[in-house]
């Protein structure tokens, strides 16, 4: 859908985008200049072809037995030379333009990606992955395709149109006047038709988008649909959507497929005007047969690009709109740079405190109102509460994925905003609920946090996370390639991999956000033993649904709707018979 919408949008700041495109293209200016030069020469040469052919035919027109072969041959050879040179140049132009446009796309892609790496985490919470990806894949592709083909098309068209016109006027101004009748006719016809077809084509794209979305959604829920014997309804709905798509297709093509033949017919009528008037002029002795021949060739050349230009302009607009979207992304505010005198957080003890912290993802929706807590080095702090209570938000603040609105988060007594982000984040290891693996070997996935990790270290971490035996059962062991969407590894196993990753990373502070939610109970028990080793002497933050897992925490924070409603040890909280007590006993009901 995003793709189809983007075609229709017109750029808002055409000039700005053009200027920035020009800046990005600056390194290629020599190449571009050579393309322009080559293009001019190649097209002038290919325009000379018909003239030379005309001259040769003129020589031949002397009639039976009177042809001057030397001159015919000379003209013919010149003609051949022009064509050969022009073709070779065209190939060279293609080569250069392919190179420039692809390199340009590469540069843009790398810029966008590097930008993504500098954006705050919040950006990714607010934008859909599909939308961001379509800028890198689809939008940049539109720009590069437009560059590769349209720049040369425009140059070629302009040269051809101007050149042909000049040649036509040179041959016969009177006949050239004839084309001035048919060309405007063809151009206004295509413009008129485009206005008619454009909305129909976007409607078609839209209805295809609707159909694609529906199919994807229904098939991914297929089991449910079958389970409820709902397939009749779904098929009926699809019939309607399919019918719509078919109609939209027909409606658009109905008009679209008339353009080509009509323009062809207008050109043919033009040709017939030229033939008639040419003949009449020939009778009046004002033109030769050879001249008529070349004129016909030029008029064919002339009408082609004229009809193309409107098309190209449309493509240019959509490329500019795409460029604008890419530039908008490049203009997004980045994660704030570290403060000027930011220190690296070194020799971390791990005393963490939050003082009167207030925070909301949007200013009008505060999540945390006034939160104060302490977690001293080596302690285990558990955060519990119903879904949506703000547990994950605290993690976001600790890691400085977001900055607090008021109050302060401190590590070892210093405001975390006075440390460099890199050193602050480096002081934490974390295992999140949403397990994350990337396409790569198991070794790479475990070693991700530690550069130059040795195989021994990785194996030790895997053993500690109780995933080593599983890995050894895989055909390629630690070299087995896993991926986010690959089915060769279950969710639970992915979670173990991320635990192994954290084990290897070995930081002073540890964040476990529902770290064992996807692991089955018997494995969990084993991991917990390993985790206890991992957690020893560290400051630990644990988010858990299963309250049994955090009973021995030094401090339990009970969150509800963004506020800490209770804090204390398990025993204290149970005695209080408050919110925690209710949550805890609910497990056993």
């Amino acid at each position, binding site marked *: 859908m995003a793709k189809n919408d983007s075609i229709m949008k017109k750029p808002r700041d055409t000039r700005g985008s053009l200027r920035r495109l020009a800046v990005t293209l600056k390194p290629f200016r020599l190449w571009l200049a050579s393309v322009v030069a080559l293009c001019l020469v190649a097209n002038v040469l290919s325009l000379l072809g018909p003239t030379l052919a005309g001259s040769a035919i003129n020589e031949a027109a002397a009639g039976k037995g009177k042809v001057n072969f030397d001159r015919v041959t000379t003209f013919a050879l010149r003609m051949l030379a022009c064509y050969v040179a022009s073709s070779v140049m*065209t190939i060279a132009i*293609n080569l250069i333009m392919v190179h420039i446009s692809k390199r340009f796309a590469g540069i843009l892609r790398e810029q966008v990606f590097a930008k993504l790496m500098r954006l705050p985490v919040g950006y990714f919470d607010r934008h859909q992955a599909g939308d961001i990806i379509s800028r890198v894949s689809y939008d940049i592709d539109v720009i590069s395709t437009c560059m590769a083909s349209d720049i040369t098309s425009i140059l070629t068209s302009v040269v051809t149109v101007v050149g042909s016109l000049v040649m036509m006027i040179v041959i016969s101004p009177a006949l050239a006047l004839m084309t001035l009748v048919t060309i405007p006719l063809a151009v206004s016809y295509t413009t008129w038709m485009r206005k008619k077809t454009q909305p129909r084509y976007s409607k078609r794209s839209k209805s295809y988008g609707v159909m694609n979305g529906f199919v994807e959604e229904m098939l991914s829920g297929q089991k449910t649909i079958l389970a409820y014997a709902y397939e009749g309804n779904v*098929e009926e709905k699809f019939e309607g959507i399919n019918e719509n798509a078919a109609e939209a297709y027909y409606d658009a093509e109905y008009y679209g497929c008339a353009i080509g033949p009509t323009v062809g017919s207008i050109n043919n009528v033009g040709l017939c005007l030229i033939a008639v008037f040419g003949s009449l002029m020939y009778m009046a002795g004002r033109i030769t*047969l050879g001249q008529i*021949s070349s004129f016909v060739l030029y008029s064919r050349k002339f009408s082609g690009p004229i009809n193309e230009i409107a098309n190209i302009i449309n493509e240019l607009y959509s490329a500019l709109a795409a460029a604008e979207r890419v530039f908008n992304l490049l203009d997004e505010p980045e994660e704030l740079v570290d403060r000027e005198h930011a220190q690296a957080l070194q020799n971390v003890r791990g005393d963490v405190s939050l003082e009167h912290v207030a925070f909301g993802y949007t200013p009008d929706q505060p999540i945390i109102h006034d939160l104060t807590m302490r977690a001293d080095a080596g302690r285990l702090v558990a955060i519990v509460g*119903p879904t949506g209570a703000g547990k994950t938000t605290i993690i976001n603040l600790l890691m400085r994925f977001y900055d607090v609105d008021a109050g302060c988060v401190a590590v070892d007594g210093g405001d975390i905003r006075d440390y460099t982000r890199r050193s602050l984040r480096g002081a934490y290891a974390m295992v999140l609920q949403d397990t994350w693996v*990337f396409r790569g070997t198991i070794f790479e996935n475990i070693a*991700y*946090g530690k550069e130059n990790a040795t195989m021994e270290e990785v194996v030790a971490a895997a053993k500690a996370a109780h995933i080593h035996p599983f890995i050894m059962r895989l055909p390629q062991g630690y070299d087995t390639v896993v991926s986010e969407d690959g089915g060769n590894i279950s969710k639970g196993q992915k979670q173990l991999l991320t635990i192994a990753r954290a084990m290897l990373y070995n930081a002073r502070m540890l964040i476990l956000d529902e770290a064992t939610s996807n692991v089955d109970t018997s494995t969990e028990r084993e991991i917990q033993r390993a985790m206890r080793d991992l957690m020893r002497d560290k400051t630990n933050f644990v988010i858990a649904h299963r309250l049994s897992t955090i009973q021995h925490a030094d401090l339990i924070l009970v969150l509800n709707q963004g506020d800490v409603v209770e804090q204390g040890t398990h025993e204290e909280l149970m005695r209080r018979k408050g919110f925690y007590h209710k949550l805890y006993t609910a497990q*056993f009901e």
Partner: protein
Amino acid sequence: MRYLGKILKKYRGFIALTMVIKLLGTFLELLLPYVLEHLIDNVAPTGDRAMVLIWGLAMAVLAVLVRTLNVSSNRMSVRTAREAAREMRTELFHVSLNLSGAQMDEFGLPSITSRMTADSYNVQNFIRAAQTMGVRAPIMMIGGIAITLTMDRGLAMILCFMVPIMIVLVILISKRGIPMFDQVQRGMDDMVRIMRENITGIRVVKALSKEDYENRRFTTSSTAFERLDAKASFIMALPGPMVTLFLNAGLTLVVLIGARRVNGGQTEPGVILAFLTYFNMILMGVMAINRIFMMLSKANASAQRIAKVVELQDDLPVLPEAEGAHTDREGFLVFDHVSFSYEAGNTDASVGAHGFAGAAREQCLKNIDFSVKKGGSLGIIGATGSGKTTIVNLLMRFYDPQEGRVFVDGRDVRTYDRDELRRKFGVVFQNDAIFADTITENIAFGRALGEDELRAASADAMALNFIEGYGDGFEHMADIHGANFSGGQKQRLLISRALAGKPEVLILDDASSALDYRTDASLRKAIREHHSEATTIVVAQRISSIMALDAIIVMDEGEMIGYGTHEQLMERCPVYREIYKVQMGEAA
């Protein structure tokens, strides 16, 4: 080609008519330069102005006629393409929607979806173009050559010699280029995958300060893609200038030899001029043939992919009641010594997380044997991949077991009409689907349920509160995949859906994992109180979700390692005891 033929068979009369009209139009179009040549060579020298005008008029009429014929045949071909594609999609969707679990596993969701969309568009475009361009291009080419042959055999020989060489050349280049586009696509997929990984894992990347590393990783992939893309684009840009060069060289030959023949009195100068025009026509014909060739290879591959799905046999046929197995065992739901494995061919990674079973594939069931009496309840607990979901899959006949039989209400499940069987169930699957529709429709799901029933069901599922929190209540729209609901809200809607039909059998497969303990407890209470007549199966990781049920099965690697009540299992089953201890704390 076979499947393409099958789709088009119905339309063959109409297609033939379309092609005849297109043929006529193309022939007349070919006549135009012929008339032009006649006008300049034969009419003009006579000095007869009236004749010049008459011939000119004839040419104009011809041009208009050509347009009419071309436009109408184009439109006719669009009509056929529309009809054929629509029917093809209807059939494909019907088959896809009714695929058995094993079949769905074999293809995988992304593959089926792309057949419905990209492949069907490829075929449609081909059907549209083949009828017109497929006629026009060869006729332009062959007709052009034929007419030049009648004009001057000697000169035409040059064409006869060159055109086949050009076609072979162009198709050879395309043949080399087409597979490169697959590689380019894969390169693009690779790049997109890295982006997606970074977007979804941005917290990990930032936490570990791996931004530079990720930048390098992306650049490597982007550079590789760039190289491939440039190479493919360059190769595909070659045929144009090469064909032009060839034809222009031929043109030079025509001029040279033509002059000689004019000198010998064998031909007229006008003929050479006409040749120049026909050359252009032939050039376009050759390029169009190349395009058709590319389209055909694409459309044919697509058609084959579609055919593969559409022509599948039903692998879960309904048996007549007499042929079904019988059982004397008591119970509403009976598993009689059932063993099952997903087919060996389906274990590869490509099936992925989209697989039907949702869990690891290599797991199977070994000798599962139990029964649940009407209105009774059964809990299933065990490690991920131990076969819990598979039991549900067999019960609802998404698969058939290799050994043993499954009975519902005393009847072999294979003898039920599939819809009849499934209507007995109200079910929530693991990672179940919410559809982009109103909450009402998501709960009612095509069943004729009144407002009271919807409200009662959502109240039991603890969903009523948040539904009523929306201004438009039950008419609130869900986004695709229910993206506008939290995990807990989704599960509560799904449970409402399962409860709403007052099903004979209620199945909750990991349906409350995102609910906190309190909500989960209230849900269990509501089911106990308001749905006691339903036979219930609860699959869960949490022991608290199942410990109060009539019986519990403990699964481990496809086997039942424990079967009994909570108390019995605490006594007899060490694994169960272990799970209990871990989840409820040492104290419990």
